[in-house]
């Protein structure tokens, strides 16, 4: 893994790097279950206080919450879970630098929109957050990304488990075509070896309700996911991402392939989901950013074609009174 995590060992936190060899913690049912006992997750306020970090450090990612997150017991602690701190982030494809030195803090329980012209690295940035970026051959990352104080590029972090904490929704609805609606929702849970019928049933209902799809599909859970309309398919994909119990939802232009009515439903859904999740959404549609997001980050492309962050602020300010001239030109439609 060609990643320079560049985070010095915190002296008071020896257990933070449990695996010096960089091997991911064993992926066992026991650890996963232990992780989602509601009480074990970070108590309010603990997330960013440095003295207390060692105790919290490995919990949310290295162990990973399960579907227990969807239970009401976890709701209280969700208030502080899902804070993302990105520092000096550079992302490369081989030798080409796609993202240059991005510093960004992403708040929990809010929607952060990433806007900017095509090719400015919005999607690449999103994919560095849950370490999907490194799956592209030759792709590397420099800098740090911390989720609730835990370096997601740390040697003790297994990217496979990280992705369960940071769910992702893609541009085109991508239900698994050989699976029923039900099986699509539990596809992620089955990966963790959970097969108990009653548990799966409960997760399917909760996830579909949260994705505002339950009433439309509850009588045809055994039907193929491809039989749904595009908007329904995208909500199915959101339910599928929610079912594994993430803290963060990364959405890459989730409505760009949908008609206006389906888009509206997705936007309403995003507004509901932000009560419980940190949401980062990439969008080409500035009206959409203005409608759904609390904060907006504007990225653009530099001379070297590397994307960089121009500014980030409250959405209302970005669209009415941005600090940077570039931002103003972009949101007012003068370029991009």
């Amino acid at each position, binding site marked *: 893994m060609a990643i320079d995590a560049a985070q010095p060992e915190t002296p008071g936190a020896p257990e933070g790097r449990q695996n010096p060899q960089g091997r991911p913690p064993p992926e066992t049912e026991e650890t996963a279950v232990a992780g989602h006992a509601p009480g074990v997750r970070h108590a309010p306020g603990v997330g960013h206080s440095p003295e207390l970090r060692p105790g919290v450090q490995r919990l949310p990612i290295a162990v*990973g919450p399960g579907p227990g997150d969807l239970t009401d017991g976890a709701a209280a602690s969700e208030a502080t879970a899902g804070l993302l701190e990105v520092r000096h982030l550079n992302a490369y494809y081989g030798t080409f630098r796609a993202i240059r030195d991005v510093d960004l803090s992403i708040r929990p329980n809010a929607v952060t929109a990433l806007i900017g012209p095509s090719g400015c690295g919005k999607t690449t940035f999103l994919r560095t957050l*849950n370490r*999907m970026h490194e*799956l592209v*051959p030759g792709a590397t990352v420099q800098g740090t990304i911390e989720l609730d104080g835990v370096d997601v590029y740390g040697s003790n972090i297994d990217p*496979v*488990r*990280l*992705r*369960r904490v940071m*769910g*992702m929704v*893609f541009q*085109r609805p*991508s239900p*698994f*075509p*050989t*699976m029923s609606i039900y099986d699509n929702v539990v*596809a*992620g849970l*089955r*990966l*963790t070896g959970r097969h108990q019928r009653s548990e799966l049933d409960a997760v399917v209902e909760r996830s579909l309700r949260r994705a505002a799809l339950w009433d439309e599909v509850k009588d045809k859970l055994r039907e*193929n*996911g*491809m*039989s749904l309309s595009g908007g329904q398919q995208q909500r199915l*994909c959101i339910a*599928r*991402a929610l079912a*594994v119990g993430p803290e963060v939802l990364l959405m890459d232009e989730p409505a760009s392939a949908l008609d206006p009515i389906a888009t509206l439903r997705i936007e309403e859904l995003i507004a509901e989901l932000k009560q419980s999740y940190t949401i980062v959404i990439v969008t080409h549609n500035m009206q959409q950013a203005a409608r759904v997001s609390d904060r907006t980050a504007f990225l653009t492309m530099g001379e070297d074609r590397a994307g960089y962050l121009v500014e980030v602020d409250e959405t209302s300010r970005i669209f009415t009174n941005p600090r940077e001239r570039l931002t103003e030109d972009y949101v007012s439609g003068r370029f991009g």
Partner: protein
Amino acid sequence: MTLVAAGLIVVLLAGITIRLAIESAGTWARFGLGFLGGTTWDVVNGVYGALPFVAGTVESSLLALIIAVPLSLLTAIFLAELAPRWLSVPLTFLVELLAAIPSVVVGLWGVFVLSPFLRDTVEKWLVGALGFIPIFSGPAFGIGLFSASVVLAIMIVPTIVSVSREVIVAVPGAQREAMLALGATRWETTRRAVLPYARSGIVGAVILGLGRALGETMAVTMVIGNKDIVPTRVFDQAQTIASKIATTFNEAQVGIQTQSLIALGLVLLAITLALNVIARLLVRQVAGDGGGLASGG
């Protein structure tokens, strides 16, 4: 022009079938459908039955599939999903090159190298370890059904590998990404997202391989042992329809013997056609299920 070309093919197929039926009419008139179930092929007394050859054909092809399918699928997955480009490109080329070896050369190698080798290693071990099961009981001579199946397997691996590799490569990246984003490892992604999506195409690839195995003549003729019995053990010497026709048509006498050989040819054509139809229906059913690619088979 194109219509004429397409029409010509239809005419050709129909012509061959009708001609085979007419030329073999004498056999059908004499033995009826009993020809299919008859176990004797007695030139002296003029009694002809197809069962040994039908059984030899079906058994050798199925055994070849049992050997070739797992090997081919693992190879295709490796080439399509796991191998880096610098390795997968030359390897794919080499696998496809395997299909270019003339079957008579494969047969020659089968007779002089593979059969003795199998006799002294794999067959010996199978007889020792599984000999208590009737189909694996000895003796094993090397030459026989088992060697023929291994030779066939080697000949159909390239077909199955190259078609399934293409089908797997054609699975949209979005499917892989969706599974990876749910917290799947690479292998889980292949098993749970890629292979299900590609399964109809993979079935098609296997059927293509089976079609080749059923009709393969030269290499099989050389290693199967050419004995007109219904094989009951995997080490039996046997005969397929193709090998029977190839070994006897030359000295066959005009009349019922030639007619019976032609009848055998008709049976082989029928088996192959039936299999293709079944395969197509299977692929369509899977695809209609929402199962990904309808092409590839």
